[in-house]
């Protein structure tokens, strides 16, 4: 009896797992029915996405998913790509490189996938970009900031573009780290800075570019420490930097660590601001312990201060998504539109097949788009030519913009 029950339970469990594994998460794009009278006789093309839809960074990833869906739905309504209906297929990467690789392989094995929006993390992009590049699938990231993705391993000395199909609308850490340093030292007047990172591609890279600029500007980097991305106890690191009397902490990494780290700094009597990059700009940072006075840089200008983003914001609200568009919503919307507009140019009035993939890459490379985040164009490496960044500070329970500027090398 017991044995049989065990077998039955196991069978049910196995079945449930099987169902989850087979389930497709392709969204039937809304708007293809009511009100739209587009000609979709040539079939369906798919815009993919690889982003963290679950896990600790899902607040950012879900905003990216919704923003892309909005762009795809609008394109279907406006018949942007002649003769085709666009489908949107978001894949979860759980902010993990290995799972991102699986998602990318899944998307790239589908001949209808023309372009992919994502990823959020630089570490996942390092896995995804080569897989998509091999299949000549265009990838546009709204959030990757690690320089090596566009400039190669010797990003600062001998830049060489590793992936012809990879583009991004986010500025790199070569710009963001120094931009943060300039604010923290020249405007906020900090002199002794402890730098901590999470050892991942994004965090370590950002911490390095920040430290280099900070030293150049005459501040002292009193400590360089590393924590684990799943750590919750930072008492060791804090006890180590405490006697060095830092007047600010710079953290390269994301909010799941940055929030508790900020709270524990204060808990140890170190009432100094924590500054980070775009990875900590989310409401969750404050919910997890971020304090008033903490600072962050983010790529682009704040959505609610950009006249160009007003339409996006009202459309997003009208679409009634359950989640906020979050820190990357505006840029993600633009990234999706870069692909959609490129596709419209490449397809023209013809049909899409594998021979058109190069045309799509060329069309994206030649992008001149007035997007929600501002004007978008790419340089020869696939980086955005827009170098606008914003410094944010925690006010109440969220980040509020302090100042927006264009990065100038010091």
């Amino acid at each position, binding site marked *: 009896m017991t044995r049989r029950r065990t077998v039955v339970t196991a069978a049910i469990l196995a079945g449930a797992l099987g169902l989850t594994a087979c389930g497709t998460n392709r969204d039937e794009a809304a708007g293809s029915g009511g009100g739209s009278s587009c000609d979709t006789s040539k079939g369906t093309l798919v815009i993919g996405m690889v982003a963290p839809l679950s896990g600790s960074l899902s*607040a950012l990833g879900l905003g990216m998913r919704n923003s892309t869906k909005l762009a795809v739905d609008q394109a279907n309504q406006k018949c942007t790509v002649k003769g085709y209906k666009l489908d949107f297929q978001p894949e979860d990467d759980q902010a993990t490189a290995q799972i991102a690789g699986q998602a990318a392989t899944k998307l790239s094995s589908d001949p209808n996938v023309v372009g992919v929006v994502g990823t959020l993390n630089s570490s996942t992009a390092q896995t995804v970009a080569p897989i998509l590049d091999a299949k000549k699938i265009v990838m546009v990231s709204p959030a990757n900031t690690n320089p090596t993705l566009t400039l190669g391993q010797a990003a600062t000395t001998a830049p060489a573009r590793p992936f012809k199909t990879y583009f991004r609308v986010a500025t790199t850490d070569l710009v963001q780290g120094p931009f943060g340093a300039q604010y923290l030292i020249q405007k906020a007047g900090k002199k002794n800075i402890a730098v901590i990172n999470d050892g991942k591609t994004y965090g370590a890279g950002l911490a390095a570019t920040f430290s280099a600029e900070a030293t150049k500007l005459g501040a002292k980097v009193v400590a360089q420490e590393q924590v684990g991305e799943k750590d919750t106890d930072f008492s060791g690191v804090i006890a180590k930097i405490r006697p060095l009397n830092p007047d600010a902490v710079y953290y390269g990494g994301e909010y799941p660590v940055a929030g508790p780290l900020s709270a524990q700094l204060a808990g140890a009597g170190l009432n100094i601001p924590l500054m980070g990059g775009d990875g900590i700009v989310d409401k969750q940072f404050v919910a*997890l312990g971020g304090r008033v006075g903490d600072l962050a840089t983010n790529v682009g200008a704040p959505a609610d201060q950009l006249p160009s983003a007003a339409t996006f914001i009202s459309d997003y609200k009208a679409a009634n998504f359950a989640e906020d568009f979050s820190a990357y919503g505006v840029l993600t919307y633009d990234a999706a539109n870069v692909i959609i507009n490129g596709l419209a140019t490449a397809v023209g009035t013809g049909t899409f097949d594998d021979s058109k993939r190069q045309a799509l890459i060329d069309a994206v490379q030649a992008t001149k788009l007035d997007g929600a985040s501002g004007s978008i164009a790419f340089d020869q490496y696939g980086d955005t030519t827009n170098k606008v960044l914003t410094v944010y500070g925690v006010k109440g329970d969220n980040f509020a913009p302090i100042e927006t500027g264009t990065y100038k090398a010091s």
Partner: protein
Amino acid sequence: MLSTLLSQIVNGLVLGSLIGLIALGYTMVYGIVQLINFAHGEIFMVGAYGGLAMFTYLLPTALKNHWYFALPILLIVGAAVSVLVAVAMERLAYRPLRGAPRLAPLITALGVSVALQEAVRVFYPNATAAVPFPTIFVPGTLIIPIGDGIPIKYSAILLVVVALALAYALNTFVERSRMGRAMRATAQDPDVARLMGVDPDRVIVLTFVLGGALAGVGGILYGGLYNTINIDMGFQNGIFAFTAAVLGGIGNIRGAVVGGLAIGLVKALGGQYLPGGTAYDYVWIFVVLIVVLVFRPQGFFGETERVRA
């Protein structure tokens, strides 16, 4: 410099007490049924979520700000939730495999661990990401004025006191009480214990109840100290706790606590003084484990494994 050393020792003791508290559950279950219950970390996690659910949805707002009301309620609820899950786990997953080869329950434990994590992820609101946890105890930090000052959060003091008191109580229970004697007898030789009238099922359930209660209390104290909980917390701390149990001698109650404190201290002091800094503090934990196991394979307090008839 002295204050840095003392601060790191304090940090090590705080983390070590928590790990020791979880390690007790590993070591007791192993002592009785020779099962490495890899799902024990998840029991710890479930306790924290259970307490948080109680705090968020059931506790009247008037009581939330008074720690002397909220804290005992949360500790009891956290322990109760953990005990319930631990007993259900024993009943549904491990008891059917009693007598099966040792690998079967071990793999089952891994399965239970994944199942519990995913269950919380799916069913607890917003559990896909880290969730804020209230500071149930006196907020703020005590700064002991030596050198640059040694900061200790009040909730950390609470954690250490409660953890050590519970470990002491458990030790007394096992060594002095009638049920404790039955536990020791079952650990020594289940067949002879049965002949002497000890019901092994009762002893095993009791073991899971005790381990679960300690883990549940640990989960609440952890949440109160770090003010954030996530579904991975059981895995991460469970690995440390398992290591602590092995280091102290698996099956031995004092060993689990000493092993936990040792790991906490190695992590804190290794991150401060050893090359590589905090990036390598996990490495030193396992270096110490390997070194100890080379010279003392049974751990600090463990007995050499007997061959069972």
